[in-house]
């Protein structure tokens, strides 16, 4: 972690070198057109900033030279100093000196300005026009002068994508080499491969770091958007933002943009009430909308909360029954979380009015699919009359994911950690057959469990997901995954470790099997299938009906 002083210093140097380049450009223009007022103003501005910045950070030589040059240029501007050859030479020298002083800081060198040059600057600044003859020859260092380029580069995101892919490939080979070194028992190879491991890890984080942008770059667009929607809907909205400093992969943020916009439009149009209605309910006239971001090492959490009318659970149940997603009997017994999960069904909408900003028909499933596609999670929580919160849990990086490795029927599988809630071992007797499925009680909560071996391998005609007799052994390892406000326990044969994996998409024609999000190679050289939790959950739901 860089200290703030170090960061300030780097920013100062990068900006100062940019100024230095621009000054060189402008003074060459001025040499040909000394009356160019715009260029003069620009030179003045650059020197002015350089002076103020160097004074603030404490590089007094630079602020001193900038100040002298600034004064000289202001005299040129007011025509008190002519842009003669001698004067131009001194000004060029002065700007060169600035460049050297800036580079010296960059290299942590002490550098004193040339006293002859300083005196020359004083002479022209004090406007002793007669005494330009006195201007002493300054030792020219231009022959030995280095070209210095800006410390900042702009880079296309495409190039970073490519770099990230290469790192992914490298990680796979690294794991293979590490594993080979253990098999071969060569100490030398072990030492080299563990060094390779550390370097690759460093490289991975450096590339990931280079792709990060502030969430604020998206959040800060919303005050205006919310204002416009609110005006069109005749609502009053008080938007608060927090966590704009949180950093996230640029591509993930890009994919999130439309989703967040959609949720915000919904919140203002359908969530928040009209001012008069709010007053009747004893709420402040202006609806509150809060957009926040938090992060830990692995994930970024974005929350959008409104204090509006909340979801109408009865209406959602009615619509779900109408659309035959669930029978009326079953609907009665559903928990709030289960009811809310219908919101993510394709095209599900209870909105009765079509408005300019939130047209009917574009459901939350679009948002959900976008978040699924980057391996994130979307959940919703709502209380009637009190408001709604959407929570998006997003990975910080697309390419590399933390995953849990396990085995089913001697095939290796991985599940991204973002979808796993907990891992438990239960005795077979603690799993109960209820109707067509098996249920386990986990910390007071009844969770449907499914034997993956059965779900993935059994013939359609012979599949018995509710039959305990199919389970092997007494102790059952269960990976609890969460998707769409629902929990599902996956019974696996053998549990292995957590590991960072690089997910490679399936190639054609296998890419049409959506049960698997891709494959990864383990250090042993074995192929490991990456289970797609959303697709697996859907697959299970379809089998039990």
């Amino acid at each position: 972690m860089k200290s703030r002083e170090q960061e300030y210093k780097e920013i100062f140097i990068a900006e100062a070198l940019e100024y230095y380049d621009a000054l060189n450009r402008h003074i060459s223009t001025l040499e040909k057109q000394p009356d160019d007022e715009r260029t003069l103003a620009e030179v003045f501005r650059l020197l002015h900033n350089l002076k103020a910045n160097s004074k603030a950070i404490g590089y007094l030589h630079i602020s001193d030279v900038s100040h002298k040059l600034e004064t000289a240029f202001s005299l040129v501007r007011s025509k008190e100093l002519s842009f003669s050859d001698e004067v131009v030479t001194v000004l060029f020298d002065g700007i060169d000196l600035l460049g050297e002083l800036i580079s010296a800081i960059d290299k942590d060198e002490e550098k004193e300005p040339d006293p002859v040059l300083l005196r020359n600057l004083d002479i022209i600044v004090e406007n002793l026009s007669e005494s330009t003859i006195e201007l002493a020859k300054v030792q020219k260092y231009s022959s030995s002068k280095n070209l210095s380029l800006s410390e900042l580069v702009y880079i296309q995101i495409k190039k970073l994508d490519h770099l990230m892919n290469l790192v992914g490939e490298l990680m796979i080979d690294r794991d293979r080499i590490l594993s080979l070194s253990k098999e071969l028992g060569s100490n030398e190879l072990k030492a080299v491969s563990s060094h390779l491991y550390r370097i690759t890890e460093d490289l991975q984080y450096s590339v990931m770091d280079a792709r990060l942008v502030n969430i604020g770059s998206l959040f800060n667009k919303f005050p205006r958007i919310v204002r416009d929607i609110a005006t069109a809907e005749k609502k009053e909205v008080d938007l608060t933002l927090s966590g704009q400093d949180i950093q996230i992969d640029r591509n993930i943020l890009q994919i999130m943009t439309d989703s967040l916009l959609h949720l915000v439009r919904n919140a203002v149009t359908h969530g928040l009430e009209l001012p008069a209605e709010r007053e009747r309910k004893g709420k402040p006239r202006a609806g509150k909308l809060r957009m926040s971001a938090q992060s830990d090492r692995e994930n970024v959490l974005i929350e959008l909360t409104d204090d509006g009318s909340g979801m109408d659970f009865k209406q959602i149940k009615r619509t779900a029954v109408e659309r035959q997603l669930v029978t009326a009997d079953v609907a009665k017994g559903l928990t709030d979380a289960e009811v809310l999960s219908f919101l993510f069904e394709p095209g599900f909408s209870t909105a009765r009015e079509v408005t300019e900003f939130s047209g009917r028909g574009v459901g939350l499933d679009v948002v959900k699919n976008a978040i699924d596609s980057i391996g994130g999670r979307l959940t919703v929580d709502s209380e009637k009359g009190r408001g709604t919160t959407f929570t998006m849990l997003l990975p910080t990086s697309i390419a590399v994911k933390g995953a849990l490795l396990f085995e089913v029927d001697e095939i290796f599988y991985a599940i991204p950690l973002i979808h796993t809630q907990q891992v438990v071992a239960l005795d077979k007797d603690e799993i109960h057959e209820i109707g067509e499925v098996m249920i386990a009680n986990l910390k007071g909560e009844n969770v449907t469990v499914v034997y993956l071996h059965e779900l993935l391998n059994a013939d359609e005609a012979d599949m018995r997901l509710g039959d305990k007799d199919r389970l092997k052994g007494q102790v059952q390892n269960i990976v609890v995954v969460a998707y769409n406000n629902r929990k599902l326990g996956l019974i696996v044969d053998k549990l292995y470790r957590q590991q960072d994996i690089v997910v490679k998409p399936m190639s054609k024609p296998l890419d049409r099997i959506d049960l698997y999000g891709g494959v990864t190679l383990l250090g042993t050289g074995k192929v490991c299938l990456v289970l797609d939790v959303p697709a697996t959950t859907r697959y299970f739901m379809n089998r039990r009906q």
Partner: protein
Amino acid sequence: MKRILIVDDSFYMRTMLKNMLTDAGYEVVGEAPNGQTALELAKETTPDLITLDVILPDNTGLDVLKGIKADQPDMKVIIVSAVGQEVIVNEAMEYGAKAYIVKPFSEEKVLEVVSQVLSEEAK
């Protein structure tokens, strides 16, 4: 949380100001490197306060001040200037700036002026 817009053409200055203000619990809702962006962001973000550098690449700070005041007469603006620009500062105060800070500034000074201006009742 009070919301502040920073207008300054130097990235270094903006970063310093932003850190000082954010550390003190203010929300920096935007950063403008030039006059055009400053006017747009002032409209878009309607902050509680704007810090305005007087020398900007496209317009002078004074033009930006006039533009902001024409659109939002009650907007609180603090002028950030360097030594030797007293004339501009005086003019800015006549156009309705609330206070000024002289570069190089100390953190204490910035926070003192900002909190003082923010606590004044809008007239």
